[in-house]
């Protein structure tokens, strides 16, 4: 379970200080799906970074299962990311020189999984997202949708407890967007993940059970009655 208490984040750019988050309080239960939406520059990605342990808040605490991500050591935070958190990026962020299978394997490297098992698990993950025939393809040989599927396989191959997605369909056309969202929702249900999704796409937000809207660094959470599980 995530528990964010009084989370603030300030950036200093020259003489100017930008307050990206202002005293955010938020609880995300295990297995929940939360969509964070809001205008560009509103603080969506910054909040996701705090939740994912990619950055630390200036003030406040971000607790995951009672562990404060804001105060633990860098090494422990890195380990926690490797074990518990899967992340999907808008631009896929695949390593361009590695094949699809190798890209998925990169998520298992910090866990010390042996090469043979690593290869097997990566292949299995790719098959689960419909890319069983594309194991040896490098990113440039794959479409945008396929690349995002590789990224999803990479995020899920380590069997994380949390899946974070930062605008996962932002670079995709509408048809592919729906496919990817359907895949993500299917995996969320299948694996019982805690799923936090950042998007500015209202159509995606409308399908979520819980939506957090962030504006000027402040958060408003809405439980959506129309959500049908």
């Amino acid at each position: 379970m995530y528990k964010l208490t009084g989370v603030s984040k300030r950036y200093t750019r020259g003489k100017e200080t930008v307050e990206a988050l202002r005293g955010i309080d938020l609880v995300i239960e295990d297995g929940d799906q939360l969509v964070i939406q809001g205008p560009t520059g509103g603080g969506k990605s910054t909040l996701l970074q705090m939740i994912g342990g990619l950055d630390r808040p200036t003030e406040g605490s971000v607790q995951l299962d009672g562990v404060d991500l804001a105060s633990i050591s860098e090494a422990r935070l890195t380990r926690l990311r490797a074990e518990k958190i899967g992340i999907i990026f808008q631009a896929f962020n695949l390593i361009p020189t590695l094949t699809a299978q190798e890209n998925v394997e990169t998520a298992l490297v910090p866990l010390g999984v042996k090469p043979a098992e690593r290869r097997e698990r990566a292949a299995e993950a790719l098959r689960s997202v419909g890319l069983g025939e594309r194991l040896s393809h490098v990113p440039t040989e794959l479409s945008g949708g396929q690349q995002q599927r590789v990224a999803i396989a990479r995020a899920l191959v380590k069997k994380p407890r949390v899946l974070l997605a930062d605008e996962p369909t932002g670079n995709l056309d509408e048809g592919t967007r729906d496919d990817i969202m359907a895949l993500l929702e299917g995996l969320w249900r299948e694996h019982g993940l805690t799923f936090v999704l950042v998007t500015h796409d209202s159509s995606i937000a409308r399908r979520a059970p819980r939506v957090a809207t962030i504006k000027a660094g402040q958060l408003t959470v809405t439980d959506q009655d129309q959500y049908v599980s």
Partner: protein
Amino acid sequence: MFGIYLKRELSRRKKAALVIAMGLALGIALVITVSSVSAGMQQAQEKVLQSLYGLGTDMTVTKARSAPTGNQSGRPSFDFDASANDSTETQSSDRVTTQGGQTLKSALVTEVAAQKGVATAVGALSLNVTKVDGSFTQGKAKTDTSSPSSSPSSGQGGPGGGQGGDTGSTAPPEIQGGGASFDVNSYSVTGVDVTNQELGPLATTTITSGKTFTTAQTDAKVAVLSTSYAKENKYTVGETVTISGTKYKVIGIATPESSEATTDVYLPLKQAQTLGDSANLVSTIYVQATDSKQIDTVKSTIQKNIPGTTVTTSADLAETVSGSLSTASNLATSVGKWLSIAVLAAAFLVAALLTSSAVSRRVREFGTLKALGWPSRRVTRQVVGESVVNGLLGGALGIGLGLVAAYAVTTYSPKLTAQLGNTGGGGSGMGGGPGGGGGPGQQSAANTMEIALSAPVSLTTIALAAGLAITGGLIAGAMGGWRASRMRPADALRSVS
């Protein structure tokens, strides 16, 4: 994953990898070339010094130079008798002088050998023999036939004619014809200690015909001739050579390791002392130290304990070497060294900047890996690994280029000249090496040596090059790795294009 990732990254960035590798290769090739040329220079200098000293000699001891007094001008003088009548009898005279005219007592050899740090010492006596032979012919005095008082008469004339005969009371008679024809032949003789030929003048020669002295021939009338002298004068083993009236049996022909060795005839020391009227005297003491690193200390000890001597070490001798060898050597050790350092430093800097720049372009990549849970050390290792491979590639290229350059130098063998200051005859600083050669007329020629330059590449140089390549890679990698390690995973999300 490390190996696969590294291989793929280097394949993808071939051009950048090649630029880094070529930069390092250039620096490393230069280091190898300069090192090998310097080694060649060193060898050339050692060759020059060995030709003077002999292999194994660490220093020589000679008498401290003093101003000549009285008749010690050192110039040879000859006495010839003018013959009466029309005699054209050949006259000959040998003049034997010690080279430089500075000698030491033989007892000093034992004294020097007893000094702390001295392994062994032997004495040698260098002599110059100037042989003048020829004859006079008389000139004829011819009087003017128009003058009744004149009558033919003969008179002795010096070379070219001169005054002589009856000058008469009227017009002097004109001397026609007459003169002198003399050949001057100079050569060098060195008396060697036959009981220890491993050190001293004979140490730099190889007996190519006959044999060398036996230890029993300390006072035997035997001689070893240099190849060039034997060839020029058509001597072979078994024949006799006459020096100042004394006959010596030729027992061996010695070929010097350096073409510039200047001794023509080697005699047992005692024979040379008799020949040069220098009983119990030597001109040079050759010294071998027990430890080559203690040469300066041994030099000081000898100079302190045996006053009136000049001790010359290889280092002193090297300072007297001038000419293109010296210039090139200085060039290699100063300009070459600094050029290598500058190029290498520039190559390291370029490699570091390019690696750092490559890391900057891979912010998202490294940020993503960190977001996936890769520890900083693993990301750093990846960057350093790529950089070290670049360095090794540069090293391999550099070693190849360096070897080609060294091979080219050795093949082309540029000739360098070495001018040896104050050689022969106990000049200050040099202490009168074994040569000095061939009398005054040949002195300056003997002091200039021509040496072919080679560029030997040692395993140490190759190891140094490989070390530099790895160092270059590590420096570049450290810079790139440092940047990568400081990168935050959040950067991966921010740098969405």
